[in-house]
């Protein structure tokens, strides 16, 4: 899909979580690549396995999880590797920004120490140098009084400020890849916009690649050049943002787009996706979306779970990809 040697190559990634109800296959058959400096969106409903897939890249899954498949980052395999070998990569080459800034910082340690820490352990800097750079990083994420904030504790900052601090932390070692796991979901709308603008600018300036996980298609469209769509633990469609949004080739993507209120096209009431996510412990055979799909037929029950190429750059797991998907595309006018 990506012509040059990709920065990150995920192949056939599968994650099984350990839950009180038994093992849960949270993601499977996930394969995609991210090129250097590329911004890729990963969308899907809650529980579709997006966050789990991201955390699997860095080996940050909950206890008792098992991972199979392969994650190659800059020529190195990250799956099945000891914590000792992953730790030097975390925060330094691949950093991660989490969903809830209210709980993602240690409540009893000062901001300065928490930012400086990543520089100290990953780059071996001393306290003074790390603290000076932490101040600089806070200024870069547009925090007005960096000196004051350095000495403050998380509970003294707003959610937006805390997310800025976490972004500063993620940028600290100039990583080559930043995994953003719904970084704006827990924030109010105005703050969301500021944080998105900041993230876009930060990734442009640093030249870092980014995977932006979100359930918000509009946000992904603003920020990313390519999109991956996940449903019930599987990738169902991927491709460049424009074509995917204009002409979705998977019934789920199409349904997802129909569920968005059209801002810039002719007015059309959003259509919600009927039904709910399948039982994760007993997913339907074949295409997992077929239980909610309006175009599903008998052949969908025996579908291979892999993405099939569509139009060169794109891929879709829908066997109706080439034919009649209920169309939002051209008429409803998703711009791009």
């Amino acid at each position: 899909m990506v012509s040059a040697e990709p920065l990150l190559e995920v192949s056939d990634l599968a994650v099984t979580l350990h839950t009180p109800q038994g093992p849960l296959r949270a993601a499977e058959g996930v394969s995609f690549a991210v090129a250097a400096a590329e911004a890729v969106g990963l969308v899907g409903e809650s529980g579709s396995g997006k966050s789990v897939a991201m955390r699997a890249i860095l080996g940050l899954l909950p206890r008792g999880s098992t991972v199979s498949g392969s994650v190659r980052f800059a020529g190195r395999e990250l799956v099945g590797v000891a914590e000792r070998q992953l730790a030097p990569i975390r925060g330094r080459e691949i950093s991660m920004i989490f969903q809830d800034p209210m709980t993602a910082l240690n409540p009893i340690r000062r901001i300065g120490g928490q930012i400086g820490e990543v520089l100290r352990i990953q780059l071996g800097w001393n306290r003074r140098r790390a603290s000076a750079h932490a101040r600089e990083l806070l200024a870069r994420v547009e925090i007005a009084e960096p000196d004051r904030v350095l000495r403050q504790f998380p509970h003294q900052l707003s959610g937006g400020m805390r997310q800025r601090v976490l972004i500063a932390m993620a940028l600290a070692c100039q990583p080559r890849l930043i995994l953003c796991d719904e970084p704006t979901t827990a924030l109010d709308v105005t703050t969301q916009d500021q944080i998105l603008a900041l993230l876009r600018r930060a990734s442009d300036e640093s030249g870092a690649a980014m995977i932006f996980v979100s359930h918000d298609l509009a946000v992904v469209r603003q920020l990313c050049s390519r999109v991956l769509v996940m449903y019930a633990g599987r990738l169902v469609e991927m491709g460049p943002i424009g074509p995917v949004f204009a002409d979705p080739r998977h019934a789920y993507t199409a349904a997802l787009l129909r569920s968005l209120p059209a801002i810039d096209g002719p007015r059309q009431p959003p259509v919600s996706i009927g039904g709910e996510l399948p039982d994760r412990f007993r997913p339907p055979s074949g295409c997992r979306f077929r239980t909610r799909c309006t175009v599903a037929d008998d052949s969908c029950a025996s579908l291979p779970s892999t993405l099939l190429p569509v139009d060169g750059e794109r891929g879709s797991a829908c066997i109706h990809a080439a034919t009649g998907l209920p169309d939002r595309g051209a008429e409803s006018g998703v711009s791009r």
Partner: protein
Amino acid sequence: MQRLGYLGRRLGYVLITLWGVSLLLFVMLQLLPGGPAEAMLGITATQQQVDALNQELGLDRPVVAQYVDYMGRLIRGDLGDSLVFGRPVVDVIGDALPATLKLAVYVVALSTLSTVTLATLAASFRGRAIDHVIRALPLIGVGMPGFWIGAMLLFLFALTFPFFPAGGIEEGFAGALRSLFLPALTLAISVSAILIRSLRRGLIDVLESDHVLTARAKGLRGVRLVVRHVLPNAAIPTVTLMGLVFVSLLGGALIVESVFAIPGVGQLLVNGFKRHDMPLVMGIALLSAAAILLVNLLIDVVYSLLDPRVSLR
């Protein structure tokens, strides 16, 4: 400034509470059958002898007058003279205090060490065999009374296998370390039993929290992760338990000092009671109450230092 005001107010409460304790003690000691004169003179004493001694000690006066007299001296910091030792209570307690303090420091060191180590092990390997073993240990600690643990340790490691002296307290740091090991261990077992459970729970909660995930995403792992981001956070709820633990420690010291023949305050109190030495008993009880109240105040201060979200008001 706010902190100073808080401390002042808390110290005021401490004084009021101590006054309440002294009044309660005074009344309770009055209600005890027998009296110091009988205890001092023995069963062969005649009523005249008892009356004469009571008069000499001022114990024939009305209770209220005795109380006013006692309080008057207490306010000036005078706990009176011990009836048994014939010396000021303050001096008598002062002589016994070092042994008890050494024991207390030893217990704190042993129980902190074992609590942190075992709770961290259990939490890190939660659900595994080692966790189950560590979780079972406190049950033994809680289930067996201190005097029995003490007697068993004494029997095993001082009498059967004489690694440690059977009682008393030896000279010097090394001597104290050796001779106080068994009594300190006895108390540490019951103290750790409470603390391990609390700290393990706290550690597991913190290990599963979001900010530990952030720390791991920064590249922290192993001991460094636990020491910097897990233990300090997990210790907060356990610190609040310490007040309770301190009280049980005081009670335990009474028994352990007797079992191991340590000439400390606990033994002094037991002897004071046996011989109706009211000023001594009152003195020790008041000091213990003061210690408990001050330790609780200290714990609240430590709590506020550990957790910046808590402010002293």
